[in-house]
């Protein structure tokens, strides 16, 4: 029964306004890549999905968006939690997914395995939501691109070793490509496909 209560609890108490506030944080995050912001509303999804990642799921997923979950998430109560609260269908095929969720510490597949959109419809691509250790305190990366005045420095901690290679490959196929939402605790950092990253 513990599993059941996990599935039914943990959504927004005030769905209309909390979803709006989470969306605005995401919108501002994508409009100003590299800024770290905290969600004012959080979800309480079953472990191991993070609270901020759960809030993203509640805000953006519904029956129109198929969701891919990392193996550990797929084995947990998370698929039922997402299904109950958002109605989103699960998919095991990465390039069918509109959203993909990966919990902290899990292996991150290379980004080109997900939907990248087409040259005609580059918007039909996966948005990856990855929880990492922390959004600061890691190795410094210089970010440039749309939404960034001159340049900004980000230092996420706990990114996969090959992250910069994955990201450079993703940047190279613009306008196709995935978009990335990094979460840690209740904070979020968005990286749209336009952002260029390099080591400091």
């Amino acid at each position, binding site marked *: 029964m513990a599993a059941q209560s996990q599935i039914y609890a943990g959504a927004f108490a005030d769905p209309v306004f909390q*979803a709006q506030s989470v*969306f605005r944080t995401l*919108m501002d995050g994508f409009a100003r890549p590299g800024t770290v912001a905290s969600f004012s509303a959080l979800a309480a999804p079953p472990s191991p999905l993070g609270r901020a990642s759960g809030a993203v799921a509640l805000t953006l997923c519904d029956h129109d*968006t198929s969701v891919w979950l990392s193996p550990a998430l797929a084995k947990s109560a998370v698929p039922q939690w997402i299904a109950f609260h958002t109605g989103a269908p699960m998919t095991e095929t990465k390039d069918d997914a509109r959203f993909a969720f990966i919990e902290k510490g899990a292996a991150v597949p290379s980004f080109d395995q997900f939907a990248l959109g087409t040259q005609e419809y580059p918007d039909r*691509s996966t948005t990856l939501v990855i929880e990492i250790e922390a959004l600061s305190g890691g190795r410094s990366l210089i970010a440039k691109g*749309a939404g960034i005045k001159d340049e900004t420095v980000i230092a996420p901690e706990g990114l996969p070793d090959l992250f910069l290679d994955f990201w450079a490959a993703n940047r190279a196929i613009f306008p196709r490509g995935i978009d990335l939402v990094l979460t840690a605790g209740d904070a979020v950092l968005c990286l*749209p496909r336009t952002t260029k990253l390099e080591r400091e």
Partner: protein
Amino acid sequence: MNDLATYNFAYLDEQTKRMIRRAILKAIAIPGYQVPFASREMPMPYGWGTGGVQVTASILGPGDVLKVIDQGADDTTNAVSIRAFFQKVANVAVTTRTKEATIIQTRHRIPEETLKEGQTLVYQVPIPEPLRFLEPRETETRKMHALEEYGLMHVKLYEDIARNGHIATTYAYPVKVEGRYVMDPSPTPKFDNPKMHMSEALQLFGAGREKRIYAVPPYTEVVSLDFEDHPFEIQKFDKPCALCGAENVYLDEVVLDDKGGRMFVCSDTDHCEDRRAHGHAGHMLARPTPESQEAAE
């Protein structure tokens, strides 16, 4: 009041908002690219800004301050009715002052006051596809965007020069965003194009009938198309605003009588009022001067 009888906050249902919000995020990630979305019927006809209204409704929160302008004016029919709509369905604070607004919905102007970080400008767009009048088939224009094949647009601008000696396009002047997509800035006068370049504010575009959403993030390169020997130029006005004396602003022509009398006044009413409140006066501003008192007698 019975809650069952009221609309959801900001009129749209939550599923519609989620769908539009997803489109907005993709639009921001691909600056200048037109994201298709499932535009809804709104309680106003197409052409009244249904695209802008749906974008505003999807981003609006209870803490926002909304300003709505129509050709720069806060007090014309379209602006007044959309502002009243959001007051009714979202009970949101409204203002006419550009500085105080967090969301500005606009029909065909960008405010004169430089927009700041944290502000969002929502454009109402009638025809989002800049290539539509050159190529009517959606399948073809989509392919042209995919291949970054914008030669046709340059031919059009060239033909302008061949016929008129200069580029005759004065509004909806095509721009290239972040060096990739050619975008229609909606029918704003080309006077406003330079304001889009590296703006601190987020710019969102909604086309309701055509079912497209696109965006220009802050600090994004927006270049008006031109030629080396015919560089892009904005409109110039001979006289300052007749009411506030402002120069280097976009002016509307107002016909005064049937004898050819006319005046040119700021299209941005808030800017004009603000200047007059600060003591600026144009040559036709009504003032109780000795002369006008004599004339009245």
